């Protein structure tokens, strides 16, 4: 089961995540001035909210991560050698 967590102390209440979500999973709590999860069942795990959040407050678990085919193998080898 997909899970979304919003780190309360990190959320600045900018509403970017609420605006970007295509399925209205997130809502804005005007009293607390923070984003809240209102409908986790409709989340498609596009991760746009997590990517757009300036403070990285949103995390998803139990989701399918796309296969990272665009990673350049030669570059990765060089970085590994460097590290």
């Amino acid at each position, binding site marked *: 089961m997909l899970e979304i967590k919003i780190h309360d102390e990190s959320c600045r209440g900018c509403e970017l995540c609420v605006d970007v979500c*295509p*399925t*209205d999973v997130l809502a804005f709590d005007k009293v607390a001035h923070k984003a809240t999860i209102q*409908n986790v*069942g*409709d989340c*498609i*795990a*596009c*991760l*746009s909210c997590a*990517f757009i959040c300036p403070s990285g407050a949103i995390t998803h678990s139990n*989701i*399918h*991560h*796309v*296969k*990272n*085919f*665009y990673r*350049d*193998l030669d570059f990765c080898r060089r970085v590994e050698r460097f590290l």
Partner: protein
Amino acid sequence: MNDLEQSRQTLQETMNFMAALAAGIEPVIGRGACSMAYSAGRTLGAQFARHSQRTNDLETALAEVRNVLTENDCLWQFEAFHPSTRPSLITKGEDGSEEILLVFRDCMIRQSLFRYGHAQKGSLCYMMYGFFAGALEAIMGRRAELAIIHAGENACLKCLKVHA
């Protein structure tokens, strides 16, 4: 280099080529680039689906499209999405059209665009739109549209409409 690394390198080279082609034609041709890519995708979809089983049921047709993609080694994994705001998975219009939401996860096009930092919803996305339109026209014999509702980093949400 083992087989997996060789396949991966071949795929990466193809992706580089695709992204470079898209990035090259869009500034020169403008909006016409999307029409060209749509047309190419539609022809490809119709060709791939020419031996598929004919059906008038949307869910069966989508399963056929999925088979066509798998048989041709296309990495375009998609699934039907039923949001809580919609009464049913397939919405029927008064004109006899049918609408369904689709979520695309692993996508060669998205990966290619990210490789070079290109914007989504460009000509390559239109090629996919064309592919679905062509495949569904061949399977259902009806005109189809695939509108992009949201292009995300990990998944895209699209609305498939099949006309009566």
